[in-house]
């Protein structure tokens, strides 16, 4: 940073200090605080570290690895810029529960492999957000089936989309613990380079 400041002060033809990164850092910190104060679950999708953090009241609960973050715009408006600089209020799809058949419980001390009554875990989820944005959470390992593709296709409402490709190992966990109404915040703060870290010291 010192090197950058010095270079900037030397005069014409030098690189300006990195205002864009500072603005992004301030925006993310401000929205992180706003989300933390909301008492809602919120996701912080970091395009630099490719992680998706789930937080509640400022407390980090889990961090999932992302393979990529992709921004999708309708073909008709592909030339338009979208900054993703807001705090998005989203609604997650509800999961279908598995019906329990009444009957006597198993013996506590019994051994063996009892079947776990586990609701099916979806292969993808679409969060519908406001301001208009659709956040598609997709497992990196899964290829979407025809039905899912058709559903996504039919859901189009001209809104921009963000596709979060979740690493295979984390996909099931994130789909199971997906909050019903999360907030979503995107960060594009560049990670510090080894040089700038050394300078900071």
């Amino acid at each position, binding site marked *: 940073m010192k090197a950058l*400041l010095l270079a*900037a*002060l*030397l005069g*014409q*033809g*030098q*690189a*300006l*200090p*990195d*205002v*864009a990164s*500072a*603005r992004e*850092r*301030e925006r993310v*910190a*401000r929205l*992180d605080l706003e989300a*933390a104060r909301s008492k809602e*679950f919120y996701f912080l999708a970091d*395009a*630099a570290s490719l992680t998706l953090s789930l937080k*509640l009241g*400022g*407390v*980090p609960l*889990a961090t999932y690895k992302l393979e990529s*973050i*992709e*921004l*999708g*715009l309708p*073909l008709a408006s592909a030339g338009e810029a979208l900054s*993703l600089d807001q705090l998005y209020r989203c609604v997650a799809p509800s999961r279908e*529960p*598995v*019906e*329990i058949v*009444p*009957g006597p*419980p198993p013996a*506590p001390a019994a051994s063996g492999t*009892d079947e*776990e*009554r*586990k609701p099916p875990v979806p292969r993808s989820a679409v969060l519908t957000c406001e301001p208009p944005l659709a956040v598609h959470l997709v497992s990196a390992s899964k290829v979407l089936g025809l039905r899912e593709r058709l559903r996504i296709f039919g859901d*189009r409402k001209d809104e921009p989309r963000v*596709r979060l490709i979740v690493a295979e190992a984390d996909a099931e*966990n*994130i789909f*199971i*613990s997906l*909050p019903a109404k999360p907030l979503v915040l*995107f960060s*594009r*703060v*560049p*990670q510090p380079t080894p040089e700038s870290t050394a300078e900071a010291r």
Partner: protein
Amino acid sequence: METSDTLGAAPAGAPVDVAEVADADATAAPAEASPASPKADRNRWLLSGVGATLSTLLLLFFLASRLYVYDRLGPIEPTSASVESTPEDAAAANKEIKDLESKAKRAQRSVAGMVPGSVYVVVDTARNKLYLKKRDKVLHEALCSTGSGGLLKDPDADRQWVFETPRGNFRVIRKAEDPVWTKPDWAFVEEGKSVPDNWSERRDYDTLGNYALYLGDGYMIHGTLYQRYLGRAITHGCIRLGDEDLERVFRSAPVGTQVLIF
């Protein structure tokens, strides 16, 4: 070319249209022995060709209107070098950066200050894990069981229950040693038994184990008779722990402790 030739060949006063083709089909169909005339065949092919082309164009237009263009999202580009930058520009930029960094640090400190400084509990319902934490440090990690997400319907009444562990920020509102469970209606319905009228028949002295930490609305962190199920989502919404882990959590988490469930 073929299209205009065909149309040109049609005699005046006998325009070929869809209705005519349909009629021709209708008349030809019952008498399969008498084939349709070559002219009718040609017209039919022509019309189906035009129809197919129009449908394809419509479909392509529809598909194109629904296509998305995807771009990978990465970190923002740092401010690029500017040959026009002057010392004044740089000074203004530095002032802005200083101001922004000060605001960012203030916000980051506020968020960091929201992480409880005393012991708190985090429950991960996907991994069926419970963590006893203080600030960012994990003091204890335990396998637990959380809600199955199952749906139970009462065959004798119009009511149902979904066994989900509630998600959110809770607090330990009460603690008890040797807790007694007053079984709710669903406990009887699930076992296929009738719900008793006598409340004494609802009292259960074994199921909850040695300790219970009450979170409100009937949800608890408690022990279990089904230790072999720990690590699996099989409960009715409560959080079950093994005996030793339960004792550790019970001793460490006083009333008022935050319990974050996700």
